[in-house]
């Protein structure tokens, strides 16, 4: 479980996060949603240690990440897998080298063992036989799946996904969503994903945190987000006419 308590973060005069309190549960897909520029990515970057919060603390299964020294933080980071918005695969390495990289850096596995692990991870994301391709030779969806394979190669306890299906077609987006959900349940990982995609929210969101104006505005599950009367959430969830129609029909059905 990841616990966030009283986190504040500013960039100059711009106060981005205000006293964020929340927790992300183990074995669940925890989603962070909200409009652009509300502080979702900043919160995620504070949690993984790319930004240092001014106040508050973040703990990973009781280990206070904000107060650890560099080496102790490094140990926790080895337990974190991250899927970036643009996949962030290393351009100069092949798919195989990308997935093997954390294993080479942090384990004492032999080359054969590392290769077996790479092939297992690639098989897990349904990508076989692309070991020798470079990221530039892969499609967007393939790159995301390779990034997931790299993220799970070290058997992480925590998985972070920054807009995992942005820039993908709806069908591929569903494949990525399902993969994240399956991996979370299969390996009992604490998954935290930032998304704008309402389809993801409904499909895979076990817990949902809605960030508005840098504050923890609302938290609940996928059932309650559909029925909540909170004005800001309604404006976000039912922004399109299509979603408004769905809501009207749901309310009519309830009556």
């Amino acid at each position, binding site marked *: 479980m990841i616990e966030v308590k009283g986190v504040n973060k500013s960039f100059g005069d711009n106060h981005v996060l205000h006293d964020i309190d929340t927790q992300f549960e183990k074995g669940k897909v925890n989603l962070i949603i909200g409009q652009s520029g509300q502080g979702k990515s900043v919160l995620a970057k504070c949690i993984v240690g*790319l930004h240092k919060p001014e106040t508050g603390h973040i703990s990973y299964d009781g280990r206070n990440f904000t107060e650890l020294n560099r080496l102790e933080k490094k140990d926790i980071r080895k337990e*974190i897998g991250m899927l*970036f918005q643009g996949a962030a695969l290393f351009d100069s390495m092949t798919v195989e080298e990308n997935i093997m990289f954390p294993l080479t850096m942090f384990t004492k596995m032999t080359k054969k063992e590392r290769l077996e692990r790479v092939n297992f991870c690639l098989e897990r994301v349904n990508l076989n036989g692309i070991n020798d391709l470079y990221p530039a030779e892969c499609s967007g969806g393939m790159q995301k799946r390779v990034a997931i394979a790299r993220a799970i190669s070290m058997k992480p306890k925590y998985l972070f996904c920054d807009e995992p299906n942005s820039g993908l077609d709806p069908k591929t987006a569903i494949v990525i969503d399902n993969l994240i959900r399956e991996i979370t349940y299969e390996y009992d990982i604490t998954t935290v994903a930032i998304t704008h995609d309402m389809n993801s929210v409904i499909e895979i969101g076990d817990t949902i945190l809605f960030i508005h104006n840098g504050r923890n505005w609302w938290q609940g599950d996928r059932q309650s987000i559909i029925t909540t009367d909170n004005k800001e959430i309604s404006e976000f969830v039912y922004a399109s006419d299509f979603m408004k129609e769905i809501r009207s029909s749901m309310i009519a059905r309830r009556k």
Partner: protein
Amino acid sequence: MKLLQNIGRFMSMLWVVFSKPEKWGVFRKKLFEEIQLIGINSIPIVALMSLFMGGVIALQTASNMDSPFLPEYTIGYITRSSTILEFSPTIICLILAGKVGSNVASEIGTMKTTEQIDALEIMGVNSLSHLVLPKILGAVMFFPVLIVFSMGLSLIGGWLSLVLSGLSSTETYVLGLRSFFEPSNIVYALTKTVVFAFLIVAIASFYGYYTKGGALDVGKSATRAVVSSSIAILIANFFLTQMILL
């Protein structure tokens, strides 16, 4: 104020860069890759520049030898001195600041803007040490080799231009090359080269690593890297000359 701020950031970057590599095997592999990219791939441009510049130095010296009191071997002597003292270590390093500096800054800058550096950090890798240290060491180790190669080719260029134009004979040119030779000049040239190599790669890495934004900003970082490292080379050249030669 911004200059001081940048110098402070540069120093703290170097502090992190010179930390123990995560894994020596990975570091060694990266070091050889960088020697290939930064050093060996620069051989053609260095060779071309050196041959022609050596030729031009020799021709210009010969064309200015009006006084009958100046012996003909002075051409070889001046070509050698100009090449070893200034042309090879300084001018070639300025050329390499353009080639290597822009390459390093844009490579690291692109990694920064595409979150590849964040990916390294999240894995627990010291991204600065992993990316920058092999580049700095690769340049510091291989630039002196390039400069010695450049010196040789420049002197050959001078000889070819004189012999082909009939302005001097091989014997006279070689006599000039061997006259009043001071081995300490080679030490001076190679010391400068090591300092310039460090400045080029460290400054380029600094601008690349602190790139913010997108593709346009990567281009700006590469330009800043080339301009700043060229200025740093000129300033360092002045102080090193004062310290070593005077």
